Structures are given as C-alpha cells and as structure tokens.
C-alpha cells in the first residue's frame, strides 16, 4: 500500500487574461473593423454627396432629359449629355474590339508559346505598359501620333468612300483628334489589365485537359481552341468587362485626343467627347449650374462604371468557382 498523494485539484486557470489586455483586444478589433468599413463609407459618401450637389442640374433637365438630351449648351443652361454618353460607349467599345483579341493573344503567347526566358521579358513589357501614366500616353498621342496619323485617316476615308455603310463610319476628316484616335489610346491602356486577368484565367485550365488534347493528336492551336478557350470563356468575358469599365472612366488621355466637340457623329474620324473627358476639359471655366451639370455627369459615370465592374466581378468569380469545381 503506497500512499498515493492525491493530486490536488488543479487551481482554476484563468485563461481570460487581464481586463486591460482584454480591452486592448476589443479595441483593436473595433479599429480594424472600422478601417474595413471605410471602403463602404467612401462609396456611400461618393454617391450621396455628389448626387446632392448635382441635383440642380438633374432638376433643370429632368433625369431623363439629362441622360437623353442631345444639346449641351452651358451658356443657355441646356445640359443634354447623350452625345457624351454616345462618345463614351463608342470609344470604349471600339477600344475593346481592338484590345480584347490582342490581350488574349498576348496571354496565350505568354502561357503557351513563349519559352521561360522570353516569357519574363514579355511580362515586363506588359507591366511597364501598365505603369505609364495616362497623361503621358495622352501627350505622346496628341503631339506625335495625331499629326502623323491624320493623312492615314483621310487616305482610308477616300479608300472606303464608294462602299455604302463604311463610308459613313469612316468619312472625311480634318483633324486627327477624333473618336478613333481616342479608341486607339484606350485600347493600349486597357491591354495590360485584360492581359493580366486573361493570364490568370488561362492558368486555371487543368493541365490534364491540355495533355488530353495533345494525346488526341491536336496541334497547339487545336489544343487552344478545344481545351483552353471553352474552359476560359466566362473569365474572358469578365476580363473584357473590367477593361470596358476602365476605358469608360479614362479621362485625361481621352480629353487630349478626342477633340472636344459636343455633337454626335457616326463618323469615327470626326471629333467628339466622352463623359469623363468633358469634365476635365470644361472644369476650369465652369461655375454655378454648369459645374453642377459636370458633377452630374460624374454621378452618371459613377453609376455606369460601378454596375459594369460589379457585374464583371460576379462573372469572373462565377467562372472561377466553376473551374475549381471541375478540378475536384
């Protein structure tokens, strides 16, 4: 019989810590939560403050009239913004028609064609393109490209003059500052964004799918067509929408090259304006209702770009989930 020392019941250990440190934990949590909430606060404040400030302009024209009116005449207090909406849509859609295929091509080149070393250089080129400030693109475009390209525009207009339809879209030009030049600049600025998302999308294509296509005797192009592109379609749609949203909001480069006319024209070689660009161009000389109207254009632009970006994120996320599902 050995007397076993009955171990004393362990004293209740207080894992809660000091009250002071508990308070610190609570305080830190509150601090970081508040920091996270600033995103929502800023977005909400943008909508509320700018809408309030813009309301005289909206009231002046009526919401519908402001968006659909075709006459912009600040001196007569007439503010129809449809020509600018038209310019924004035309330039950014044409920019996407150029940028999306080129970006997909670059992304394919990087992921499927390039060797490891050249891949690094190409990625650097695209990254550098993304770091060039938009005003520098605008400067080069307006002082170098515009004077050089105007004769080319006229040559092309003369070339398609006999073709009905085309001759309305590509008509005579007397200035290189027009919708088409703006579209070109926007396309170049959108390429890095679309390329980087397209690369991410292509990276999610399962290696097994590609190998299976090769095993069936597919050439590289047939593999791209059969395995990569169908798999990536949703993601590429999202990438294009993100690029579109970015192009619609681009201000300075467009303001420099679009010409500043507030009329509409089907002729892409004619000067026009976009919603973002007209704010920058007319801001300095605006006051009163004119300035309110410019802010109102900003509200309209904010609404459009938020919706497009939100939809794009949903599309990209849904495509991602679908792809991850295919893996498991």
């Amino acid at each position, binding site marked *: 019989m050995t007397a076993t020392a009955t171990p004393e019941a362990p004293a209740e250990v207080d894992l809660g810590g000091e009250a002071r440190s508990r308070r610190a934990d609570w305080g830190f949590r509150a601090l970081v939560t508040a920091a996270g909430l600033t995103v*929502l606060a800023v977005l909400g404040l943008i909508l509320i403050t700018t809408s309030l400030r813009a309301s005289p302009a909206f009231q002046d024209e009526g919401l519908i009239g402001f968006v659909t009116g075709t006459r912009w005449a600040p001196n007569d207090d007439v503010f129809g913004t449809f020509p600018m909406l038209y310019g924004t849509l035309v330039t950014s859609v044409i920019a996407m028609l150029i940028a999306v295929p080129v970006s997909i091509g670059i992304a394919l*080149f990087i992921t499927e064609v390039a060797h490891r070393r050249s891949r690094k250089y190409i990625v650097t080129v695209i990254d550098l393109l993304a770091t060039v400030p938009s005003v520098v693109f605008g400067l080069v475009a307006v002082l170098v490209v515009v004077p050089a390209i105007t004769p080319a525009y006229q040559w092309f207009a003369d070339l398609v003059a006999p073709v009905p339809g085309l001759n309305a879209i590509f008509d005579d030009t007397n200035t290189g500052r027009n919708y088409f030049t703006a579209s070109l600049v926007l396309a170049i600025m959108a390429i890095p964004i679309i390329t980087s998302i397209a690369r991410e999308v292509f990276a999610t294509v399962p290696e097994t799918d590609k190998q299976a296509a090769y095993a069936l005797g597919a050439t590289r192009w047939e593999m791209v067509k059969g395995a990569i592109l169908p798999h990536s379609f949703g993601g590429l749609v999202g990438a294009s929408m993100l690029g579109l949203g970015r192009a619609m909001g681009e201000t300075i480069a467009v303001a*420099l090259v679009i010409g500043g006319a507030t009329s509409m024209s089907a002729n892409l070689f004619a000067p026009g304006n976009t919603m973002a660009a007209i704010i920058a161009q007319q801001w*300095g000389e605006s006051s009163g209702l004119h300035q309110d109207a410019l802010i109102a254009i900003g509200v309209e632009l904010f609404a459009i770009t938020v919706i497009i970006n939100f939809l794009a994120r949903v599309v990209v996320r849904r495509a991602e989930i679908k792809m991850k599902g295919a893996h498991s």
Partner: protein
Amino acid sequence: MTSLNTAPDLTGRNLSKRRAFANRSATVLIGLCVLIAALPLVLVAWQVITRGGSALSLGFLTEEIPRNYRTEGPGMGPAILGTLAITGMAALIAIPIGVLGAVYLNEYGQNKPLARFIRTMADVMTGVPSIVMGLFIYVAYVIVIGEKVGFGGSLALACLMLPIVIRSAEEMLRLVPEELRQASAGLGARKWRTTMSVVLPSASSGITSGALLAVARAAGETAPIIVTVGLTYIYKPDLFYGENTTLAAQIYRNATQPFAASQERAWGAALTLIVIVFLFTIVSRIIASRFAIDKR
C-alpha cells in the same frame, strides 16, 4: 511548359496541310499581338526620352514654372515638390487604413458576409474612375473648406489607393502561415499582439511592395488633381494653404498649347514623372523579390 515537351506528335510530319497552316498562322498572329503591345511602349519611351531629355537640366528640376506659355526656358520645381508632397500625404492616409482594413478582412472577417461584401466593394472601388474621386473630394472637402488646396488632391489620391492597398495587403496576409499565428497564441499572446508582432511583420515586405505600387499609380494621376488642387507657379510646401500643382497636371496643361516652349516643358515634365513612377515601381519589385514567405 511541360505540355509542349510532351506533345506526342513532335515532328508534325503527319499533319494535313490545312491543320499545319492553321497552327502556324495562329502562332504568328499570337506573336503579332505581343508586337502590337510593345510598339506603343517603345514609341512612348523613345519620344519621352529624346524630347524630354533635351528639356531636362538642373534648372528645370529646381526653378519655378514660367507664368506664360510662350516663355522659353526651364522650371518645374513646384510641380515636382507638389507631386511628391501630395502623393506622400495620400500614402500616409491610405496605407494605414488599407493595411488595417486588410487585417480585418483576413484575420477577423474571413468568410463572414460583411467581409465578403467589403471585399467585393473594394474590387468595385478600384474601378471607380479617378475623375469621380476628384469630384467627390471637391464636393465633400473643397467646397466645405472654401478653397482648392493640395490636401484635397491627397484625399482624392488616397481614395484611389485605398482599395488597391487593401486587396494587395490581404493577399500578403493570406500567405502568412497559420502555424505562426498558432505558435503565438500558444505562447499566450492575444490576437491583437499576434497580429501586430507576428503576422504583420512577416508580411511586411509584401505589404510594402504592394503599397509602393499603389503610390506609383497615384503619382501619375491627373484628373483628380485638376479638379481639386487648382494651379500654381511657385513653391507651395504647405498642402493646407493655397492652390498647388503636380507634374501630371502640368503635362496636361502644357500639352495642348501650340507654343514650342510649353510643349518642351510638357516633355520634360513627362520624363521626370516617368522616372519618379519607375523608381517607385523598381523599389517595389526589389522589396517583393526579397519577400520570403510566398516562396514557401
């Protein structure tokens, strides 16, 4: 590129002419796309370096800006100071809030509905046009205090940087291994201590790199500056008093003038701005390449 090396038909000799042609022309087209992207970059670099280089001098970097477009000669000093001060102040506002917000998303919110909502909204916020941020600060700050000041530009740039900083910092926090947090908790550290002294330091270089990239992006912004900051020709080190200016705003102002003197100053300002932006980008790259955790 294992897929290329293990392609079963390495010779391609059995391909029909049509398939071989389709494959080859697709490869050429894809390569052409890279050239299309490289062309504008080369054009911009060549033009800015040759034209800007001839405008650049010590005087250009330090002297005040001539008031008349036609005046020959140098001077962008106030714009350089304005760019650095306004962007620096924006970084002081946006980086702390952004990093703390990222701490909330990754350490506290994780998959809660609120955190998911903030994440989506931060993504949406990156797509808000910079001119809209400028208008917002004009209405919410400039009108309220009654004058255009440099600090207004800082606020607008901070709004632009915030979502970028949050999302990139969250990416970096996610790479911090869970074992570090558990080890710290096991030693009795509270969550805020763990976060401040273990999680954030191990992600610090990644966070710095992402933040610098956001700073570089903001330094080249023009639209919010011309809306909120106004214009000056002289040195204005005080961001809270009087109108200010930046290199980007000066490029925009001078680019459309038909006078050779102002165009030359625009080119010089463009070269200076690109050098500043590239410096930030390169430093960010160097810091990122030394980041240990993501190599695990």
